[in-house]
Every structure is written in structure tokens, then in C-alpha cells.
């Protein structure tokens, strides 16, 4: 099979996504007051309504409608004031009523879209950039992905097939049904077929997830199935307008699986087409373990769901006031956040994007910055707790001896932003990846990280020491200032001490001093390094630099 890169040179992949999101942050199901909870013992969150017992009627969840309106507003959709629920019929034991209550031709949210910035290596998958806005050379491109609609429906229950092969219903000895999930409010977002590479699909889903998380309407866990994504993909020769036959791809339950499943399917279809074959319209299942897609069922005939308006649910007429009220709840969205980080925090666009795209990091970043007063203040006033006398003295000393160092003595939120972002994107992220934990699960507090950033920014400790302190904060959950005190790993910034060390280094390396003076100025780094070594890594490199320059010139 050809590589994706080769295939996409000659073929254009046309990809559309269907994204199902459970509104897990709601207190109750779509049409009854049962709790929405993942992992509860089977059939403990059920009632006559979600079990479809005879005579029961659905009562729509108002908060779910608010959630989908939020989602629509955040993704540029028009909010349809007049819409209805429909019944979609099919017999399966995970559907208690044998019809799913969903929306018809008009959904609550219609005709939206998201701008996707495809940067760096991600941009490389796209061979042809027509229809996109190229960004600065080598940087990537921007492309708009249309959203057809977002509608509200109810989730089905879960089936467990016992016995037989492959855990499928065919051949199973018996099947068990858990109706806990049955009736969970579910949003289905359908994109236009605007995606052209698996990477774009992955980035779109990531961006959507960040938006939903920002709105706090779902926990968006692909692992638990609260965020599920199916892909429709077809190929056409480059330059052709006519759409090819599509396949629907399921079971892509991670961002990597979404990318890899689509990539495989594109290559599979190219193989068939290049051999003169015909792609069969069908649903295929991505098997990550064997890295292939397998046919689930043929879709040559269209399913007839006998959709008709649900007579138990009156049509909706959302008022302007309702929409405005929901709109007023819209938080700052990831794109706006990027703008703010660049404009107000002077972060690079790449760092700003990286932070904003990770809702946990972004919230942590904002919380840490919030602990720093906006105006320039003496660093020691940041502390909220009583400062030990000798530390206060040390601070005073630093200020006294290095009055010209702008990084010392006081730091503003804007000044701390960059070191904070660096800590989060590098050190904190590395820790989270290594430990496989979420930020919220660690003992790191926003004010701790702000304090650490300040300690580094004002030269109290070095970046290297900062890493060590951070590891200890994660382990002990105590403040960096206390740790620095406790461990005595403060950076030496006393000009007297620095000068003594510098003199020693220079007198021990008279030959190098001569070379330097002869014009080999690159040796400055060597002297600084020797001095740091001599102080066991505690000397302030910046001060050493200044001191050696003064002494040598």
C-alpha cells in the first residue's frame, strides 16, 4: 500500500466528521430526571421513562437545550428558533422504545464553522493548499471547516455480548443490556465535507473538544465514550469536483486513532481505485491493534428510519431573550484566548496556541497569573504568608547589591507570563506525560507555579534549580519559596561573592585570560562555566557574565 503522502499527491481526500458528545456535566438525562454517571453499576440510573415503560412520556431537559445553544454560539452556528424533536425508528435492545428521539431536518444549531490553523508538521500532510489561507512561509495554513448542524438527541444503552467470537451479537451466547446510558443527552455535530487530511480531522476534533471543555458542557472523554467521532471519507482525483463513493469509519476512540484510521482508509481506497476497482459504500470498523479497517455492514441500501415529528414533544420556539441569556454565559473561547495571550502576555503565537488548546493548562495559566498583582510590586509583597526575617533580609540584600538588574526585586504579571508559559508547556507538561496524570490530579497549585516563575525570573534560582524545585512541589505540595529556603539552593547573587569566585577562576586560568585578551572573546562562557562549577551551580549566571566582562575588559 502506498504511503499517505504519496496518495495525497494524486488524490484529494474528502472527509466529513460526525461528532457525538454526551452532555456529561448535566445533572439529569435528556427526557427524565435520572442521573448521568459513567461507570455506575449496571441499570442503577434508570426509571420508567428511560426504560420506555408503557405510558411514560418524555420531558425535555432545559439545561441540555441551553448547552447545545452554547455549543452553537461557540461554533459560529445560527441558532434555529423553531425546531422539533423527531422519532427515528430501529429495533435494537439498547433502545428501550425502539426509536431514538432526535431532531429532524432543522436542528437547534445550523450552518456554523471553525477556522483551523494547521501549523508545522501537521501542515505537511496537505500537498495542495488551494482553498486555504497560507500563513507565513514554513508556518502552515488556515482553513475553514463548515459545520452543517448540531442537534440534540438521546444516547442508547450499552450492550455486552457474552460468549461467541469477537464480542459481537452474532454468535454470542447471550447479551446483557445496561440502560444507565440510555437517555443521556447527546449532541451530534456534523461537519461539511471540508476536511482534506487526517491531520486536519484530528486538529478539528481537538479544537472542538477544547471549545466544549471551555463551555463545560461535557467532560469530552474519548476513553469513556463521552466524545465519539465517526468519519466519512472518499477520494477523488485531484482537480475533480465529483465526489467519490464514501465509507463511514467507526471506532476511532482517540485522536491518534482518528488520524490513523482515516489515513489507513484513504490509502485503502486509493489502492482499490488505482487497481480500477470500486469502493463499496459501507460502514467500516478501525482496528487499532491490527492497524486496518474491516467491513461492518454494507450501506448500499439506505436505512429507513421512518422519521416523523415526535407527537409527545411540542415544537420549540426559542425566544431572543433565551438565546441572549445563554449567550451571556459564553466564556472566553480558545481563539480569543490565543489573541489575549499574544497581545497582553507577549507570548509567541505558537506558545499562545499551545496553551489555549489545552484547557487545563490554559485555566491553570490564567489562575497563576491572577495571583500576581497587575502593577509592578516588590517581589516579596507577592507572598501572602508571613516572610521569615532572614529571607526578607536576603531579599533586601539582593535588591541592595543589584539595583540595576531589571529582573530582580519586582515582577509584573506580564513579565511573569512568559516564564510561566515556559514552565507549563515544558516542565509541567513533561511531568504530566511522564506520570500519565492530569494537572488537576497533582499537588501543584497555581500560586506555587507563579511563585516559581518569579523565583526564576528575578534570579533567585536558576532554571535548572527551578526544575528541581518543581519536582519537589509535585512531590510535596509545598510552596517553592519554602523549598528554596529549606534546601538552601538559592542562587548566589551577592556581587562580593561572585567577584571573589571570578577572581579565583581568572587567576587559575591565566593562559585563557591571555587568549581572551588577544581577542578570543568566546572564552567568556568558559569562565562563567568554571565559576558555576566552583559554586556548585549556585552562582547567578547573569551576574557572573557581567562581572567577568567588567574584570576582563
Amino acid at each position, binding site marked *: 500500500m502506498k504511503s499517505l503522502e504519496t496518495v495525497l499527491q494524486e488524490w484529494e481526500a474528502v472527509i466529513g466528521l460526525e461528532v457525538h458528545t454526551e452532555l456529561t456535566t448535566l445533572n439529569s438525562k435528556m427526557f427524565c430526571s435520572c442521573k448521568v454517571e459513567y461507570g455506575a453499576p449496571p441499570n442503577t440510573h434508570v426509571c420508567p421513562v428511560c426504560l420506555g415503560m408503557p*405510558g*411514560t412520556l418524555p420531558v425535555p431537559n432545559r439545561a441540555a437545550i441551553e448547552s447545545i445553544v452554547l455549543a452553537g454560539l461557540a461554533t459560529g452556528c445560527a441558532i434555529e428558533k423553531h425546531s422539533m424533536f423527531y422519532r427515528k*425508528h430501529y429495533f435494537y435492545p439498547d433502545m*428501550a422504545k425502539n426509536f431514538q428521539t432526535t431532531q429532524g431536518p432543522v436542528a437547534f444549531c445550523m450552518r456554523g464553522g471553525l477556522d483551523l490553523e494547521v501549523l508545522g508538521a501537521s501542515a505537511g500532510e496537505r500537498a495542495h493548499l488551494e482553498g486555504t489561507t497560507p500563513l507565513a512561509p514554513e508556518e502552515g495554513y488556515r482553513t475553514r471547516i463548515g459545520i452543517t448542524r448540531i442537534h440534540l438527541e438521546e444516547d442508547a444503552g450499552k450492550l455486552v455480548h457474552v460468549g461467541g467470537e469477537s464480542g459481537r*451479537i452474532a454468535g454470542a451466547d447471550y447479551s446483557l443490556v445496561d440502560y444507565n446510558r440510555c437517555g443521556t443527552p447527546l449532541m451530534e455535530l456534523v461537519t461539511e465535507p471540508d476536511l482534506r487530511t487526517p491531520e486536519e480531522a484530528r486538529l478539528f476534533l481537538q479544537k472542538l473538544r477544547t471549545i466544549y471543555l471551555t463551555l463545560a458542557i461535557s467532560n469530552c472523554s474519548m476513553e469513556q465514550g463521552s466524545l465519539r467521532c465517526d468519519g466519512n471519507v472518499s477520494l477523488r482525483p485531484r482537480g475533480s469536483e465529483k465526489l467519490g463513493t464514501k465509507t463511514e469509519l467507526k471506532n476511532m476512540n482517540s485522536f491518534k486513532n482518528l488520524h490513523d484510521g482515516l489515513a489507513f482508509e484513504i490509502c485503502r481506497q486509493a489502492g482499490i481505485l488505482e487497481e480500477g476497482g470500486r469502493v463499496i459504500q459501507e460502514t467500516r470498523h478501525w482496528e487499532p491493534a491490527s492497524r486496518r479497517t474491516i467491513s461492518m455492514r454494507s450501506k448500499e441500501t439506505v436505512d429507513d428510519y*421512518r422519521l*416523523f415529528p415526535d*407527537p409527545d414533544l411540542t415544537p420549540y420556539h426559542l425566544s431572543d431573550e433565551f438565546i441572549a441569556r445563554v449567550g451571556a454565559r459564553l466564556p472566553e473561547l480558545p481563539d480569543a484566548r490565543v489573541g489575549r495571550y499574544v497581545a497582553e502576555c507577549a507570548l509567541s503565537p505558537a506558545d499562545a496556541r499551545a496553551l489555549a488548546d489545552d484547557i487545563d493548562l490554559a485555566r491553570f495559566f490564567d489562575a497563576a497569573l491572577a495571583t500576581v498583582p497587575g502593577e509592578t510590586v516588590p517581589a516579596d509583597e507577592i507572598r501572602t504568608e508571613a516572610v521569615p526575617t532572614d529571607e526578607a533580609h536576603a531579599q533586601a540584600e539582593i535588591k541592595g547589591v543589584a539595583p540595576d538588574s531589571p529582573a530582580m526585586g519586582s515582577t509584573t504579571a506580564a513579565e511573569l507570563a512568559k516564564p510561566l508559559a515556559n514552565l507549563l508547556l515544558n516542565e509541567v507538561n513533561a511531568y504530566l506525560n511522564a506520570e500519565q496524570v492530569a494537572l488537576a490530579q497533582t499537588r501543584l497549585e497555581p500560586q506555587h507555579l507563579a511563585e516559581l516563575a518569579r523565583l526564576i525570573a528575578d534570579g533567585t534560582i536558576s532554571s535548572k534549580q527551578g526544575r528541581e524545585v518543581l519536582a519537589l512541589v509535585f512531590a510535596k505540595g509545598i510552596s517553592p519559596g519554602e523549598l528554596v529556603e529549606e534546601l538552601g539552593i538559592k542562587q548566589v547573587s551577592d556581587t562580593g561573592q561572585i567577584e571573589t569566585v571570578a577572581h579565583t577562576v581568572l587567576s587559575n586560568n591565566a593562559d585563557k585570560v591571555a587568549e581572551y585578551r588577544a581577542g578570543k572573546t568566546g572564552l567568556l562562557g568558559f569562565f562563567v562555566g568554571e565559576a558555576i562549577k566552583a559554586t556548585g551551580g549556585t552562582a547567578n549566571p547573569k551576574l557572573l557574565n557581567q562581572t567577568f566582562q567588567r574584570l576582563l575588559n
Partner: protein
Amino acid sequence: MTLSPAEYVSLSLGDIRTGLDRRHFSARELAEAAFATIEVLEEDRVDAFLSLTPELALRAADEVDAQLAAGSSAAEIGLLAGVPLGFKDNMNLLGSFTTCGSRMLENYRSTLSATCVSKALAAGALPVGKLNLDEFAFGSSTETSAFKKTRNPWDLERVPGGSSGGSAAAVAAGMLAASLGSDTGGSIRQPASFCGVVGFKPSYGVVSRSGVVAFGSSLDQVGPFARSVADAAAVADAICGYDPLDCTSQDVPRNFSASARAGQTEGIKGMRVGVVAEYLEAPGITPEVVSAFKGALRRVENLGATVVELELPNAHAALSAYYVIGPCEAFSNLSRFDAVRYGFCVEGATNLTEQYEQSRAQGFGLETKRRILLGNYLLSSGVYTTYYYPAQQVRTLITQDYHRAFEQADVLLTPTSPRTAFRFGEVSEPTSMHLSDIFTIPINIAGNGGLNLPVGLGEESGLPIGLQIIGPQFKDTNILRVAAALEATYDIERLAPQSRELREQHGVAHGGASSSVSNGVPNGSTLTCGASADGNSSDGAAA
């Protein structure tokens, strides 16, 4: 003292209230009398009940008695304090089976109580049992019930009408003072007409549908059967109102009884009563029905109301729309009966599809399968736009027809059914059966309320004939006002002949301990031999 069936059979709600307050009998005695009466009249005679719930009834009775003993009056306890009440067996009642007259649900125990049931019980009603119906309410004769034939108490060879046949027959026979039924295309009004009792279907949404097994969700409406307008109004007052469990339910003022009283005390002078002339030439309408209808019109005029001729240009399409919308909704609503969680399940199915197919094939009766198949077809892609969609458009036109008509009239009068009760098996063609509902179906399509008022016995058949009184949507009070006023002009026995015999055998001349006519409504306590026939001939004489 005990209450004998002879005394019990013709008790009105007013009699029960007075009797309890004056300690002529207790609620427990009322419950016991109900079961004693049922024992005499039910088995191999009327066969109205699918199940009896004596434990529930006696427990409820004891509660009422305890409240009476504590000093509450019956009226303070609730509108239905001590009233033995029966429920159509598509209404969930905790502690009972709810079969819908189907093998599919033969052993189905309710997991909840319908809101209308809960409200009736909260008003002090005694739940006596569950009443027979056409399977899932599909039918007009109660013959499609999987379990038994209910007989018309006026002539045991004849059907009670349907689908709420059991509810109508039990009241006509005097086994109950009142009962609840449901009406999707006439299922309260038509059996009320056949059995000679009052049957009231309020406007769609007035009574919650929650807990009532759905047939046609946009058409179904719950309502009472009783032997007088006042009693029907009292039951309606007890069960109506907005229900958070049914988002199609409406908040309506609870003033049906007050409207009925207004009809008696203030009359209907100056009210405008609409009629549609061509209805009297409807297919299959019998001369005796036309005659009784004309008689009722003369009485209305005599009461000072103005009769105005109205046009409902699209009403002729109501049946067609009904037989599209009804089966579509029924197909969908009945999908849940799949033998997976409850209900009839075949043994020995080797896979899921087989279990679905065989269980549904054996669990459902013929008429049910006919409607499921029809709905399944009508909603399939391609067909949907030919039938379902136009049917909804027709529905809008018909609704507009009624809306316009009620700009010129306060109520509309039609016969309830073109004919009187037929013999078992006499009408076997489904389409002929559907014709017995031609006057009632358009009202469900439009969502208005309608009431059957008995207006005498047929000159030919000697069987009860009913007048349908229709009101503007959500102005069902107009209906009750006209019904009560018109009712007062008739001297008609509401109790079926055999129950009258029972009463006479025991030498009781008047129903109940209280001989007073509650609320001034003739409640059938005055027995005049051939009164109904006289009523009709007097109408004829006035012609």
C-alpha cells in the same frame, strides 16, 4: 348497616357525598357494595372488567373513612371521596396489571400510576378495577380485546361500543358511578352513546396523558363516563390540569362543575348552537338518529338558544387524515413492545430477530397488527410525503375550519354516532367499523372537546341514542353548560334495564339513601316506564 347492590346501582356522586356526610354508609360499605354489585352483574353478563383491585379499593375506602371520622366532610376530602371508580385498562395503576386488552401485556404489572389515576385517587376515589377495551384501544366495539367480550348492558347481544367499552358498560350497568376512558377518535363518546351514558372527552391537553399507554399521542385524551353531566363534570374537575410529566398538557381552570351548574341555573338563552346540515345525510345514518337529533335541536331552541348553520368544508377529509396519523403514531408507540424487557415473549427463539418477530406476531391481535403495518408503511421513505405530510396539512385545515366555525357558534351539535349499538360480529369490515366514528374523529383531529349526551332511545331499535356537543378548543365549559341545560329537559333513565330490575327486585324506588337530586340534576333516580320512548315521541309531537 350494609349497602345493597339494589341501593348502590344508581347512586350519583352527589348521593355518595351526602350519604357519607350523613353517615348513611361508609366508604368501605360503598366499596363492598361495588364488588357485590359487580358479582351480580359482571360475570357472563356485562363482563366489563379485566381485573378487580379490591385490596386497593378497600385501603382507599378506609382512608376516606378515617378522614371522615376525623371530622372532614366528603367535599373536604376530595371531589371523588368514596366514589368507586374504574379505569380503562390502558391506564397504569400501581398495584394492578395493565394489559391494554392485549396478550402482549397479559402479565404486565404497572410500574407507576397514570397522572389521571393518581389525581382521581388523591381526590378520594376508590379504585375498583380495570376495564375492558379494544386491544390498545384499536376499535369501536371492544371486540378486539384479547381477553373477553364486553356486552352492552342495554342488550347483552350487542357491543358496548369502543374502544372504552368496559368503562361505558360498567357505568350503564350501575357497577360504577363513574369511570375513566380514553378517546383517540371517539373511544369515549361512541361507547357512551351506545350505552346511554354521559361520556366527556375534554380538549386535547386538558387531562394529562402521562401513564396512559399511548395509541395516537397527538389524538389521545382521557375523560370520564358517568350517568349525569354533573357527575362527569366533577370527575373531569378532579383529573384535569397541567402535569409536568406531560408537556402537551394544559393549565385549565377547574370549572367544569361550575359550568354544568350554570347550565342548570342560568340556562343557555342567547347561546349560539351550530349545526352542519349535511351531517344528517352522512353515510349509514339511521332515521331514528336523525329524528332524535332534530328533537334535541328543538329543545335547544326552546331553551332560548339560536341554531346557526355552519360549514366545515374540510371535515370530510378528517377520516382520511385520522387513518394516516393514528396508525403512524400507533406504529411508533407500539415499537417498544419487543419482548426484551417485559411482555409476551415466545420461547425457543434462536436469535434476536426471531424473538422480535415471533413475539410480536403472537402477542398482537389482528387489528393491532393491521395498524402497525399500516403506520410502518405510511411512514416509510417516499410514502411519507404522499400520506403523512398531507395528512398533517389536512389536519391544519380542519383545525382552522373549527376555529372559524366557533366564531359563529358557542357549541356545535352532531349525532355522536350514525347508529345505535350493533350486534356482535355484525360489523366485521374494518372500514364499516370506522364509519361509526365519522362524527367523533374530526374532533380529535382538531383537538377540541366533545361530550355524548343521551337523548333517548331509538324509535326502531329501542337502544340509546347520543348527541355530541362540541366546544371551541379549551372552552369545554361551553359544552358542559349546554349539556347540563339540555339534560334537564329530558327524563331519561341512564341505568340499563337489567340493573333497573335489580333495583326494583330489592324494592328500592330511588337510588341511594339521599332521594334528593344532587345539584338539581336528574340522575336517573326517577323511573318512568318507557320514559325514554316517551321522550322521543314527545320530540316527534313537537315537530
